[in-house]
């Protein structure tokens, strides 16, 4: 595999070299105006003034990738990869931080509906996205809970022109994937709107005949997205944005999913320098699943209904050109109704945040901010962050930031009351520990308590992290290089422990703050625009992600492995401790975009490499070492899209995904080569 990867790399280099031969004069019209970033500071800031690691994906790049869903697109970003946990839930990993600790926003507001903490981003259609902004490193100082590893913000299209404009496209591909996408917008005087609908269906597929059932069952889903902008006056502007997603999966039984968001926003400009935004956000996520076996017995029955209301008021004050203050106050009112809970549960929290940006001298930008979250279920959190950027030259900036993040214990960790009917173990949330144990004791199901009765229900702390980022950004328009060192220290991570033994030989598990882990490494991103036709970019991340306690146990010589052949036991050396599951030491990508101007066509080739990683411990010593046999070998995926515009308004696109045909079975379940053809009409 490495050979193939190398060969491709060489190919890309040689193409680049060839292209360089016909390098022409700079054509300045090709460079866009400097990009404005929203997510890093919650106000519009030029990308060159932002002192923390950011990545953006433009609408153009989304289109030229040929992808339909957010998870597919993000995987091609440096340092980001999609992982699947032991229970089979998908999520995005960034800087080695797993999906539970990454906040995903649509237009600045959070998406809910996580499975065991993981957020499956294949739910998010990307046909109406203006751009995606990714901020790495803890961002709880602005966004509160869950933003430990960073924030991914999906910014939807806004009304642009007076003339009705938009596109219609349809595509068909492997696994009978059929997709229709309609998107248009218009802006007339003080009213603007956008409309988006996406319908996607597939017959699913099965990668492993030995396992019962399909790898992916047939599904149909539909996404609706709308915006309505109304300028009441020059100073008062109102917006309503909504999104609705529905999915049905064909299984023996039924499986349905709904996801809805509504944002109402009023922007009041008091003066040239002060404006206040009043925002009301509502989102809900519902998933109902009922699975039957062949004879009609219920195998699995689950209902999940989560709702969030989040009102917020914030004021942005541009004190001077080089100083700005943002202050906000808001509340989060959450509820979750789940059949594994005794009754519907509620979380309420209130927060205030403030951020001050200043540029005392032209070369220096400093941003200081903090947020205070008060919560009904756990102790209050203060999340500060400080960042500074210094322009050594016009093209070279040093960036550094330190911030903290937290994740509130989730509903499951507080209220779960679940007994596995097949095996017989029980898992209970912190809040209901005493109650459940009492009940089981009354029913004579408990043999003995392992934990002192007084310690039951001892409150959980929020999981927290401190993240450090330091890097260099070199931006010479035609070529940019971004280099960043990162370190994230997590503490109080929630793990399970045994509370009591049951008569059936199984245990009752509860939750406890215990684990301390870290992720650290280097990210490099480089982009080189050779000429009007060719753009080459590459990215790399080196990662070390380990559990501090386990590392110390190895240091003390307390961790062993047994050779399965000789049954001989040996000590694990520090160099043999591989680290956390699902972490690859190396992630790399190369992209080449070739624009054939004369033919109105383009070729967009991307290769992603992920080095070997392990799924779980297999030799019983509680950590992943080089002797475990759950390692997935390193592999590359190659994605290619080719497009051609004809008759001015029509575009034909061919997309090949995983064209090296590196099928991955096991947990990852990555299907082999897939081909899609798409026809688009722009108006």
């Amino acid at each position, binding site marked *: 595999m490495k050979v193939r990867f190398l060969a491709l790399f060489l190919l890309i280099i040689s193409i680049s070299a060839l292209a360089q031969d016909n390098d022409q004069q700079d054509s300045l019209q090709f460079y866009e105006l400097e990009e404005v970033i929203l997510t890093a500071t919650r106000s519009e800031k030029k990308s060159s003034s932002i002192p923390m690691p950011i990545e953006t994906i433009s609408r153009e790049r989304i289109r030229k990738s040929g992808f339909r869903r957010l998870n597919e697109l993000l995987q091609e970003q440096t340092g980001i990869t999609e992982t699947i946990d*032991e229970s089979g839930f998908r999520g995005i990993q960034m800087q080695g931080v797993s999906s539970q600790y990454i906040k995903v926003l649509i237009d600045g507001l959070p998406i809910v509906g996580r499975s065991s903490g993981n957020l499956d981003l294949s739910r998010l259609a990307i046909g109406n996205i203006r751009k995606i902004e990714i901020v790495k490193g803890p961002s709880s100082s602005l966004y509160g809970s869950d933003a430990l590893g960073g924030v991914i913000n999906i910014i939807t299209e806004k009304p642009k022109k007076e003339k009705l404009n938009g596109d219609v496209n349809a595509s068909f591909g492997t696994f009978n994937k059929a997709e229709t996408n309609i998107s248009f917008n218009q802006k007339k005087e003080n009213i603007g709107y956008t409309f988006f609908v996406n319908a996607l269906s597939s017959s699913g597929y099965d990668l492993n005949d030995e396992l019962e059932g399909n790898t992916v069952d047939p599904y149909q889903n539909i996404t609706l997205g709308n915006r309505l902008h109304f300028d009441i006056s020059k100073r008062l502007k109102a917006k309503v944005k909504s999104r609705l997603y529905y999915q049905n999966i064909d299984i023996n039984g039924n499986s349905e999913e709904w996801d809805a968001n509504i944002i109402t926003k009023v922007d009041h400009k008091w003066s040239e320098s002060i404006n206040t935004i009043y925002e009301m956000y509502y989102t809900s996520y519902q998933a109902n699943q009922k699975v039957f076996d062949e004879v009609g017995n219920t195998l699995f029955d689950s209902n999940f209904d989560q709702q969030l209301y989040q009102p917020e008021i914030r004021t942005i004050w541009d004190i001077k050109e080089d100083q700005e203050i943002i202050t906000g106050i808001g509340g989060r009112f959450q509820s979750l109704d789940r059949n594994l809970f005794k009754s519907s549960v509620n979380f309420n929290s209130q927060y205030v945040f403030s951020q001050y940006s200043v540029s005392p001298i032209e070369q220096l930008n400093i941003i200081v901010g903090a947020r205070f979250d008060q919560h009904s279920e756990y102790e209050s959190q203060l999340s500060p962050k400080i960042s500074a950027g210094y322009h050594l030259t016009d093209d070279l900036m040093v960036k550094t930031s330190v911030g903290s993040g937290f994740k509130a214990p989730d509903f499951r960790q507080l209220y779960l009351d679940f007994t*596995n009917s097949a095996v017989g173990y029980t898992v209970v949330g912190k809040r209901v520990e005493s109650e459940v144990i009492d009940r089981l004791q009354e029913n004579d199901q408990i043999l003995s308590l392992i934990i002192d009765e007084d310690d039951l229900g001892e409150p959980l702390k929020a999981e927290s992290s401190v993240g450090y980022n330091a890097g260099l950004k070199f931006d010479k328009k035609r070529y940019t290089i971004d280099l960043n060192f990162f370190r994230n220290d997590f503490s109080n991570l929630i793990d399970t422990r045994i509370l009591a033994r049951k*008569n*059936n*030989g199984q*245990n009752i598990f509860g939750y406890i703050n215990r684990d301390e882990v870290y992720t650290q490494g280097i990210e490099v991103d480089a982009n080189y625009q050779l000429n009007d036709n060719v753009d080459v970019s590459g990215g790399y991340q080196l990662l070390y992600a380990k559990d501090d306690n386990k590392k110390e146990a190895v240091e003390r010589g307390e961790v062993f492995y047994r050779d399965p*052949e000789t049954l001989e*036991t040996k000590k694990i050396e520090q160099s043999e401790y591989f680290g956390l599951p699902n972490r690859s030491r190396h992630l790399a990508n190369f992209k080449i975009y070739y624009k054939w101007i004369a033919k109105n066509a383009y070729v967009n080739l991307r290769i992603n490499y992920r080095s070997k990683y392990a799924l779980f411990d297999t030799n019983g010593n509680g950590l992943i070492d080089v002797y475990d046999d759950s390692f997935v070998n390193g592999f590359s995926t190659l994605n290619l899209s080719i497009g051609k515009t004809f008759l001015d308004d029509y575009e034909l696109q061919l997309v090949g995904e995983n064209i090296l045909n590196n099928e991955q079975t096991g947990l990852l379940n990555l299907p082999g080569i897939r081909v899609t053809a798409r026809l688009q009409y722009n108006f």
Partner: protein
Amino acid sequence: MNTLRLITFCLLSIFIVSCSDDDGVGTEAELSLETETFENLHAPQQGGQGQPVSGEFTKFDFETGDVTDSDTDWDIALRGTTIAVNGGEQTGTDDEPERTSDAGVIIESGTFSDITQVPETEDFVQDSPNGFAIPSGSGNGWYSYDFATNIINPIPGKIFIFKTSDGRYAKLEILSYYKDAPTDIDPFEDEARYYTFRYTYNPNEGQTNFD
């Protein structure tokens, strides 16, 4: 069984006596340490999978190096993943044997050969209504259960030091929970509850060393 043991005992006594007569050194000869691997100790259980667990424990005696039906002359008793010692009190689970002696266990970390001595600083733990001396459950006592593969693996580096029912010492390492200790375990094919373990028994009274 008992008669057999009596005869063995008599023969052994005669041997010792005759030996000492011959050599004229002290009255007791040093018995040599035995390191053995016991294969496929079958420890079945009823119930489990959500039902109360029951069934007779399989008892093992270090002195004879074999399983035994004796109600008193045993050191450890196994049922499924549960291991009892012949010391302390009953834990409360169904069908468990009565504890008749003062046996106990110390759990140490190390390789089998690393452990050469009974640690002086630690106390032997016995079964009690609060639980087994060797804690049950994945990751607590001697094994870890992998939810992804459904395999029960003995935790490597866990060495169990037993005080036996007759006051001798033994160290033990569990090697496998599956019949014939397969290299590549298939939890659906390979039969579980068959212990393979290695142990060293020091038959000399008062001696705490294992080498």
